[in-house]
């Protein structure tokens, strides 16, 4: 009797532990690098490396490019920059580590049609396609959003790499409905 109870309790524990750490393969791999989280989140959310391809990240995370990062100086010292570049290449949408993450794969597929990799996440074809129906009132003219680049203004789980429609809430417009 006791043994059975322990077995059930054990199975229950295992099950909950599994559910808690279950990778979100439908989405983008969450950031797991402290330096990346700290440096990139100083001014905006720490976008997951799985949101762009290696070619795009390498364009963006270049010393000269970072000194004029969309109009802002985001310079990093060379050792920090090396670490950030390494993580980007290990985890980019077209890396081995992102293979199982569906949303990264969609980004890769849409990029392959572009010969030129963009250094803006918001300009990747996939991101453009899934947002093209949204009116400027909801994004650019919405003072609480301002730009498509503010993922977390509407995607309430963006920080965890979750961009599912069910987690979208547009400020001043409420929950997203098709």
């Amino acid at each position, binding site marked *: 009797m006791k043994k059975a109870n322990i077995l059930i309790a054990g199975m229950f524990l295992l099950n909950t532990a599994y559910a808690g750490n279950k990778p979100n393969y439908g989405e983008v791999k969450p950031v797991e690098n402290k330096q990346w989280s700290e440096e990139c989140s*100083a*001014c905006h959310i720490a976008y997951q490396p799985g949101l762009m391809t290696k070619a795009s990240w390498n364009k963006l995370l270049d010393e000269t490019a970072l000194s004029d990062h969309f*109009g*802002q*100086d*985001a*310079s990093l*010292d060379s050792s920090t920059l090396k670490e950030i570049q390494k993580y980007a290449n290990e985890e980019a949408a077209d890396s081995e580590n992102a293979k199982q993450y569906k949303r990264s794969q969609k980004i890769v597929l849409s990029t392959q049609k572009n010969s030129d990799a963009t250094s803006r996440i918001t300009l990747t074809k996939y991101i453009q396609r899934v947002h093209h129906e949204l009116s400027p009132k909801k994004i650019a003219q919405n003072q*609480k959003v301002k730009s498509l680049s503010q993922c977390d*203004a509407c995607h309430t789980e963006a920080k965890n790499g979750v961009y599912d429609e069910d987690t979208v809430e547009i400020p001043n417009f409420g929950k997203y409905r098709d």
Partner: protein
Amino acid sequence: MKKPIYKNIILACLLVSSYCGTASATTATEELWKQYESEGAKNFDTKRGEENWKKQVKNEEGKDFGCESCHSKDLKNKGQHVKTNKVIEPMAPSINPERLTDVKKIEKWFKRNCNDAWGRACTAQEKGDILKYLIKQ
């Protein structure tokens, strides 16, 4: 034989007051002031630091722009990045003790923000003065 207790109290008071007297400067700021002096700067001044902190210059959109644009007018308050909306924790070390304790971090943000606010690097003198002002907040 018992030591009079007031002597201990006086000693404690002395210790506390001497500690408070130096608590406004951190090892990081001391190190930076020395570095800036080696680059030719001297006599760092709170008032000049304050003036520079509050200085407004026209940005590329023709709007007045300066440190306060993102850090807010009250250093004890949180600020907000004008472009990204990101909340910036208070600059005043009295409210946010983590501030001005990391040499690398201070230099990183001077490089970025001087460039963004004034379109050029800050001089060693300007940086030293600003630190004098900020450390007292």
